[in-house]
């Protein structure tokens, strides 16, 4: 009858904590209740949860200090009031602590060595986990790509990462590309900008970006306070509204909610933006497009007017970072091929903007956003993690050697203990206690 068996974890717990005849009857009761619960129509998950609780509480109840059980009177008692089970463990543990305290140099050495190894590994791993293993914190991040111009002045593909070296796009190519491409569900072009923030005397320059409505559609974004941009905001242009990130709000304004409706820039600086919203704490800016110390903290609406185009005549004057979300049906490779075709068409139709004076064509390329975010740091991180793992191994070996040499020193002590009647398990327990406490 397979129902009558406990799940593995419970069986392990029981066998560790309950012993002998007691275990049989206690476990029998728990199993009986479990089967009855199931027979009474209880949901299996609930019944299992209850079973687990019964096992855990029963095991701990059994060992609770003062819960005088038959274990003290049964035939397994060891005489001389030594007790068994947890009481003895505690005694050994205490002795282990005393033994270690008696040799502080040795203890400190081993603890430091192990601490160093474990600490280094954990630190590196947390970085690797954050950067490499967790996908971008956006909805369906695998469909996100970075789009950009491939300039003939740079190597098109980075030899180490296999990523395109993308440059910002010009307004014109972005608009044409967007019109012609069929691979994308949504696309957003935004422009880095610096804002002068604060009152005169305490003003500072802060990195930000002018963004179109699509950016928050792609990345997701909700206000922690206030509102997001609305349709009118994009008509008004710069002299309008601004969103600030949660982090900047905390840092600069101390989380004061009264900043809503306040001007962003110093009075008399010419520009006039009003803070209308604080982005929620979990909003992640598109970090892949910015150096790590220039990630935008202030967002203003990108004007939809044509004015911006006027200043952009030369081929190299791209200012737009482009973030795209691919159609579910499109792949990065397919979108790349399409982008190459479009770039060739644009070069033929608008050679002034898309072909350099010496006859090189500007291409359009795209990268998987996660790959671009990780960039060249990826391989370095794995190497780091590998070396941290080796370090941990080394420290563990080091500690093992120290413990071993110590054990040789203690031959006499252990001999005396055994002569006085300490059993093999008792000695093993003592040594295990010491080894267990060290880390």
């Amino acid at each position, binding site marked *: *009858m397979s*129902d*009558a*068996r406990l799940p593995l974890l419970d069986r392990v717990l029981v066998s560790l904590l*309950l012993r002998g*005849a*007691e275990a*049989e*009857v*206690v*476990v*029998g*009761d*728990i*199993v*009986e*209740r479990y*089967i009855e619960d199931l027979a009474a129509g209880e949901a299996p998950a609930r019944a299992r949860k209850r079973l687990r*609780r*019964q096992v855990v*509480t*029963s*095991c*701990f*109840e*059994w060992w*609770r200090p003062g*819960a*005088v*059980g*038959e*274990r003290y*009177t049964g035939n397994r008692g060891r005489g001389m009031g030594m007790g068994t089970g947890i009481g003895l463990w505690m005694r050994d543990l205490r002795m282990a602590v005393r033994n270690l305290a008696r040799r502080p140099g040795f203890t400190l050495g081993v603890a430091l060595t192990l601490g160093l190894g474990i600490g280094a590994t954990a630190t590196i791993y947390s970085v690797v986990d954050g950067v490499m293993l967790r996908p971008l914190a956006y909805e369906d991040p695998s469909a996100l790509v970075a789009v950009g111009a491939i300039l003939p002045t740079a190597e098109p593909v980075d030899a180490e990462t296999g990523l395109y070296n993308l440059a910002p796009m010009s307004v014109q190519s972005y608009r044409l590309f967007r019109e012609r491409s069929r691979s994308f569900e949504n696309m957003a072009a935004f422009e880095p900008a610096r804002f002068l923030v604060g009152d005169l005397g305490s003003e500072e320059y802060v990195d930000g970006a002018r963004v179109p409505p699509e950016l928050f559609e792609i990345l997701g974004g909700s206000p922690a306070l206030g509102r997001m941009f609305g349709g009118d905001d994009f008509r008004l242009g710069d002299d309008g509204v601004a969103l600030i990130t949660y982090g900047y709000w905390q840092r600069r304004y101390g989380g004061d909610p009264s900043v809503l409706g306040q001007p962003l820039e110093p009075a008399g600086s010419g520009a006039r933006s009003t803070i209308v919203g604080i982005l929620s704490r979990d909003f992640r800016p598109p970090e892949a497009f910015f150096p790590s110390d220039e990630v935008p903290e202030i967002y203003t609406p990108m004007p939809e007017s044509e004015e911006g185009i006027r200043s952009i005549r030369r081929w190299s004057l791209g200012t737009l970072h482009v973030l795209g979300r691919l159609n579910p049906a499109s792949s990065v490779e397919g979108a790349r091929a399409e982008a190459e075709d479009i770039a060739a068409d644009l070069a033929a139709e608008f050679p002034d903007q898309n072909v350099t004076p010496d006859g090189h064509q500007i291409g359009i390329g795209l990268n998987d956003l996660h790959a671009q975010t990780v960039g060249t740091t990826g391989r370095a991180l794995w190497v780091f993690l590998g070396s941290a793992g080796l370090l941990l191994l080394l420290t563990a070996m080091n500690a093992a050697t120290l413990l071993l040499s110590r054990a040789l020193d203690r031959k006499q002590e252990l001999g005396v203990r055994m002569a006085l009647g300490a059993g093999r398990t008792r000695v093993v327990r003592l040594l295990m206690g010491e080894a267990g406490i060290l880390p």
Partner: protein
Amino acid sequence: MDRALGEFEQLILFALVELEEKAYGASIGRAIERRTGRQVSAGAIYTALARLAARELVTAEVGSPTPERGGRRRKYYRLEPAGAAALSRSVDLMHTMSKGLLPKLAGIAGDEPQ
């Protein structure tokens, strides 16, 4: 020597009274749960029973293996006369002490904002 019975011990002894010779861990737990709505762990029941057995208020007897619990044996407990006496003493004690005080108690409890 004659230590008073704890609340939980009283519950268990009453369960033994109810169950007579069918009292073992699971059935005791069920009886307490049915009457009081309180969930108790098997371990708690057995430690309490072990305490009671050490004071010779109950005796235990291991039954034969039962198929419905995977061939594990049950341990049946029986209330001894000494246990019955101790239980009724402890209940009497409560009755005597609480005589005439319950209405007043209810009044105080009622005043207390919960």
